[in-house]
């Protein structure tokens, strides 16, 4: 994944690189052109000056010859040579590369060749100036460009950081709050006000979305609670009527079996409804029966109640105490938690299997032998029944999860060494 700010940054960097690369030949051409034009202008001026000075000097033929000789010997960049009228030399501007003995390298020269007249005699004036080498110019421009590019990228990075810190700060704060949002907690989210229009509008939209969701969630919760509450009486009546029917002396054996068969799904209906009511209650209320709970005591109580079921399946039940597990909680919730986890283990372990409970100062865990790992994603969700067993209400672990949440504990599932392990850890404070 790429960060939002890095995306334009990358594009900007590439674009800057292209522009700067293209700029190198352009700079070169422009610099070279200015350079050459300037030299040509200069040559022109020098030529005129030489012509004028000679004109004004009124030198005799012999003196002129001596001066020209000295000129040609001493002046390295220009030469004046007499020519005949008929030689037909023309003015020209040229460029030439010559070997420079002093610097022992090849240099580029810009030259002006023109015919001047001194005392009405034609002379060929040749002025040459060393021009910077093309590769040298390109190298210098390239160097500057690379330096500037480096500066540019460095600036981009710094600016990017600064911008991401200041400009994106409200966004990050919104994101942090969203991450910690829990619909079932029923608390609305408030966002820090920001002066950036887009973020303000984002926060506003999210707030609206969340409050609508909370509304729908609460409505749904209330619906489930109301529905299961309303179902209670019909279920109780059904159960009652069946039991009265069961007492009928005239009932045939077939009919009594039928009554029994009806009782099984009815028991399941009762269970599901009871658990739904329980979930609604855990969600809605604060439990006032908070007291010090000794985990070992609760396990013993639960074990006593389930003893027959453990015996029936010939399960090997082991308890291991690694510390004193005492915590503050609602007695009712603590008992429900232990009962649910233990009966869950008993129910899902096949005959002759193994069940273990382990506890220490900071939590407890239930384990039972099993064949394969359960899907962690669905395990604690409501009605995510993993087996085809009809005893499963699909709510037992959802209730366990809710109770842990209510108490601020953490519950995890693990499967190792052919054991399902449910661990509850108390938070560390």
């Amino acid at each position, binding site marked *: 994944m790429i960060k939002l700010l890095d995306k334009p940054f990358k594009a900007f960097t590439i674009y800057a690189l292209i522009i700067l690369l293209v700029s190198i030949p352009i700079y070169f051409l422009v610099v070279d052109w200015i350079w050459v034009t300037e030299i040509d202008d200069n040559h022109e001026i020098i030529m005129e000056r030489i012509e004028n000075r000679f004109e004004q000097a009124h030198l005799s033929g012999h003196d002129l010859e001596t001066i020209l000789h000295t000129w040609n010997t001493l002046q390295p960049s220009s030469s004046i040579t007499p020519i005949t009228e008929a030689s037909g030399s023309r003015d020209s501007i040229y460029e030439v590369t010559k070997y420079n003995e002093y610097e022992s390298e090849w240099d580029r020269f810009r030259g002006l060749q023109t015919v001047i007249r001194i005392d009405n005699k034609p002379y060929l004036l040749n002025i040459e100036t060393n021009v910077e080498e093309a590769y040298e110019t390109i190298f210098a421009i390239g160097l500057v460009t690379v330096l500037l590019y480096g500066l540019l990228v460095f600036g981009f990075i710094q600016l990017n950081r600064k911008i991401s810190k200041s400009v994106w700060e409200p966004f990050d704060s919104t994101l942090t709050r969203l991450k910690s949002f829990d619909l079932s907690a029923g608390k609305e989210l408030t966002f820090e006000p920001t002066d950036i229009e887009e973020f303000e509008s984002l926060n506003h939209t999210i707030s609206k979305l969340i409050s609508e969701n909370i509304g729908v969630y609460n409505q749904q919760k209330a619906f489930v609670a109301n529905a299961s*509450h309303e179902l*209670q*009486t019909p*279920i*109780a*009546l059904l*159960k*009652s*009527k069946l*039991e*009265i029917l*069961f*007492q009928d002396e005239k*009932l045939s*054996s077939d009919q*009594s*079996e039928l009554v*029994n068969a009806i*009782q*099984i799904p009815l*028991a399941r209906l*009762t*269970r599901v409804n*009871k658990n739904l*009511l*329980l979930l609604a*209650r855990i969600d809605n209320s604060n439990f*006032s*029966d908070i007291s010090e709970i000794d985990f070992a005591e609760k396990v013993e109580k*639960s074990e006593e*109640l*389930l003893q*027959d*079921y453990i*015996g*029936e399946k010939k399960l090997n039940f082991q308890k291991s105490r690694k510390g004193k597990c005492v915590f503050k909680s609602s*007695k*009712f919730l603590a008992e429900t938690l232990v*009962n649910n986890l233990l*009966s869950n283990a*008993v*129910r899902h372990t096949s005959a002759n299997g193994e069940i273990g409970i382990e506890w220490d100062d900071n939590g407890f865990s239930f384990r039972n032998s099993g064949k394969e790992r359960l899907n962690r994603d669905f395990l604690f969700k409501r009605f995510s029944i993993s087996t085809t*067993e*009809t*005893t499963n*209400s699909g709510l*037992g672990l959802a209730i366990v999860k809710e109770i842990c949440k209510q108490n601020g504990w953490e519950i995890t599932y693990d499967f190792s060494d052919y054991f399902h392990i449910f661990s509850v850890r108390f938070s560390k404070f």
Partner: protein
Amino acid sequence: MKILVIEDEKELARDIVNYLSGENYLCETAADFPSAREKVSLYQYDCILLDLMLPGGDGFDILEYLRSQNKQDGVIIISAKNSLEDKIKGLNIGADDYLAKPFHHSELAARIHSVIRRKQFDPSNLIVQNEVKIDLLSKTVQIGGNGIPLTKKEYDLLLFFIGNKNRVLSKSALAEHLSGDLADMFDSHDFVYAHVKNLKKKLSEGGYGNYLKTKYGTGYKWEI
């Protein structure tokens, strides 16, 4: 013995009366708060079954009224709100027992039996049923002077049967009596069969008549 069923769901009240009627009980019903309040103040009952949510008032008020008048009627709260707070509050005000709906009638009958037994002034705390003598204080069972060693569960079952004479008891009702709420987490209650079998064996070895019958292969009946 007189029992008052305060329950606004008429069908349920009728079934309770129906189930209890064979047991030598005289049952009356009250379907709302005013009539319940009236009956409670006019008559005395051995046991009152009290629903908490009543048309016209709160069941707790009836309980409070009873105790403020120093009436010693036994009270069993039967409530759809399976809430521990209600249970604690009810027992604190002076209810004798609390049973969450939906319940097995047999469980209710056993609880009524137990409440009435406790209310009756009987210093010996003995239940005598044909040849069997049950000492409720020491929780021992004797037949013809010989002690019958019963496990806790067998003893519980025996009391349950005696509280539901001549009634067919389903395995699930028995399982729920033994394991409480947890029983409904399971479909198979075969262990009940083993307990009943052992109880039967021990009683008949002690010389007790064959009163405990298996019915239709799905339930049991204590026939007198």
